[in-house]
């Protein structure tokens, strides 16, 4: 198991998008449930609890993924084997993309009200 935690393991190629996927499912499901249980009135515009919660989840996930991406870059620099360097660096790229994707997809909370 310890092996899997090292950034040079190829599992990290898929961890980033998996975190992204979990976040994505969480905000989509959370939004749908929140809208069917307690929809805010349209007059509130964008300043609703739902938008704020989604926004915060987005920022937290982005920061987490950016941190992991940075960890990948550091690991790649320190890696001894070509293989380790290769996987750490590629994973760092995928983490970076996942971070960007999270931010990008979460962005519409600033201009759209939640449940309409």
């Amino acid at each position, binding site marked *: 198991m310890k092996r899997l935690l090292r950034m040079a393991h190829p599992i990290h190629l898929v961890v980033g*998008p998996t975190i*992204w996927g979990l976040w994505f499912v969480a905000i989509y499901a959370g939004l749908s449930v929140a809208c069917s249980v307690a929809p805010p009135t349209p007059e509130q515009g964008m300043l609703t609890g739902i*938008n704020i919660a989604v926004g915060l989840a987005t920022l937290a996930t982005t920061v987490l993924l950016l941190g992991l991406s940075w960890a990948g870059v550091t690991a790649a620099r320190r890696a001894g084997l070509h293989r380790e360097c290769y996987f750490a660096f590629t994973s760092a790229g995928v983490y970076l993309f996942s971070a960007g994707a999270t931010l990008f*997809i979460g962005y519409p909370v600033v201009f759209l*009200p939640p449940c309409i």
Partner: protein
Amino acid sequence: MSDTKDATLTPGIRRLHEGMARVWANPAGLGALTVVNHTSVGLRFMVTGAVFFLIGGLLAMLIRTQLAFPDNDFMSHETYNQVFSMHGTVMMFLFAIPILEGVAIYMIPKMIGARDLVCPRLSAFGYFCYLFGGIILTSSLVLEMAPSSGWFMYTPLSSGDYSPGRGSDFWLLGITFVEISALSAGVELVVSILRTRTEGMALHKMPLFAWYILAMALMIVVGFPPLILGSILLELERAAGMPFFDVAGGGDPVLWAHLFWLFGHPEVYIIFLPGAGIVSTLLPVFARRPIVGYGWVVAAIVIMGFISFGLWVHHMFTLGIPQLALAFFSAASMLVAIPTGIQIFVWLSTLWLGRPVMSLPMLWIVGFLVIFVLGGLTGVMLALVPFNWQVHDTHFVVAHMHYVLVGGMLFPLMAGLYYWLPLVSGRMPSERLGKWSFWLIFLGFNVTFLIMHWTGLLGMRRRVFTYDSAMGWDIYNLISSVGGFMMSAGVALLILDIALHFRFGRKAPQNPWNADTLEWAMPKPPTPYNFVSLPRLETRHPLWDDPELPRTITEGQHGLNTIDHGRRETWGSDALTGKLREVVHLPTNSWWPFFAALSLAVVCICLLVRLYPLAGVATLVAAVFLLRWSWENGAHPKAAPDATVAPGQPPLHSRTMNGPGVWTMSVAHLANGSFYLSLLFGWFYLWTVAPEWQMPETSPLSLPLLAGAGLALTLGSAWLAKMVRRLRRHNDSGLGGGMYLAAGLGALQSALLGLAIWQAGLAPSETAHDATLLVALAYVLIHALLGALLCLLQGLRVGYGFVGAEAPLEPVVVLRLWYYNLVVYWSLFVAVWVMPTLLGGAS
């Protein structure tokens, strides 16, 4: 075989070749139904897929004939609706996916230096499922009972009330059958790529094509189960009146749309990735330099694989889902432009830095680029919600998706066809005819579909069987139709070219394109065992770094070069490093896959004509065949009774604790888990969203019975785990009895669960709540029975001496199933008992 008969071979080597040919022989005549070899099965997939392509193409021509003129009465609305529904269905399910699987099944072992896929009988089974499913589905056209609710089968249009005929049943049963085939190919491709690469081929040294296929196979494994679930639910609704998609009964038609597109969007990438894989394989060969940015491509593949699962709602932008949720999916859809852009510019810089030469395969790749880039750009436009609202369900979308699918899949496939043709036939295709057919198809395609964007913007809807001349669309439609017929002429020419080349093609040299990958080191046409000896490789470009490989392989200078044991063998290697771990012995030709698929076809037909008792009998027969198939494994006399290997070789995989079988089970559970999660999604979706959902105040299920069943399962798993731990220490005393005990606990679990279901007195045809609950409980019940049955068989096998301290693999595999059952059972318990009890009845 011509190459292997070289006079240079010593008598010893010649004996080796003859021995290999004997052990790997494909029987002729009726025995051809027993063939399991990947080369033959892959070829069968491709040829069958090509036949379905022609059928689908014919349907397309009918559509274009009908739409060529306004108010045309060439076809009635009924026929037209059947024709366009079947065109989509045939092209997507019976052509695109299977033919790409065929390419992967055929090429992957050859590229990674293996002799066969890891589960050859599964390949054969998959093929027969595909063949029978395809025949059942297309027979509906001949019977004039074809599905007419579109290839996407939206409920309630496709459900009993609005489609009372048999059309929808043909679709649901036929497609589910075909999907079994896709899943089995998906599972074994994943495991083969990860675990049977030749010695030294580390993960980051394998050909890019293998990465693409790995991603495709994993996506099939995760992406197909939602549709299988959806099809089962809809068929249950049609046959037994369970109202999953019926608002009045507490269901929701939008659930179908979710399940369909959860599959349907990844499917587009499942089709595109192998196409891109072909491009990434061919392009460096014709650029005459290694691809630049291998890591970039791998990252792009991974990203595409994941992102494609976050896009499904973009087919449902107009369904009235909250705009903010749509915006998430819209943004995710736009993001796909990045991995696509990366790949296109990696290819460009490879060409830029190389010394590219034009040739027939390269011409198709240029065609791919033009069409696919245009399709990709309109794709980004469609990702934009407000624009999508305007053009959704118009001919603009028809044009877009043909650009993506034909550009992303058909053109690379044709490039691959011309590229690998010499490998299959040993002869070179004709440049001149090939160019003619390329230009006809390329121009015909653009004439048809470029103008169609405009027709769509003018407001022409999809799926209309005619239109009024006053709309002013006449000329555009006529142009599209002319283009369509041009394209057909090109396809006809292409078939002619391929047919003629078998007779008149010039003989191909060993490596006609001066390619770098391993398949060109094989004899031409290929032998069933691919390589008589398996080389150690530590490079991404084996043939560029060592042009002598074809000779040294044929001379048997590399690994696994003995055959006197009479086994079909290939290497089992470490997923990451490619270090050797075991010798995988593969099963030989067998009737069981054919019989199992045949009895499943009987099940399918019985369900279609609603002969349910007979369907039940046929299901049992199929189960017996499948279990009999699994019996001939490990130390069984027909598999590998003798475990001796040559000195210095790793042990046989059935004599280890972590053979590819464990991996196969895990990947299969990935698919199974995806099915289960889709079911849970359905449960929670209906609970929270369905307008008329009714849930009883207290759960109808008895807590003591549920808890008792769970306890039996938990105890059984713990007991099984203990026995596996002892096996790991080489201790098999009491193994047989222990297996029977586990089987008993499994049976107890099934009995208690069955009792709980019976006692609950569910009314599945009344409310969607009861129907969903019943399906979920039936799912765990089937798994409980399977767990018990497999343990029972393991007990028997211990008695026969097929399983024990010397052959410990199978209990490890069965334990995986029990662990899976454990997770599923308790999580379902939380979902259907704990949560409703805590949250109360009302929705």
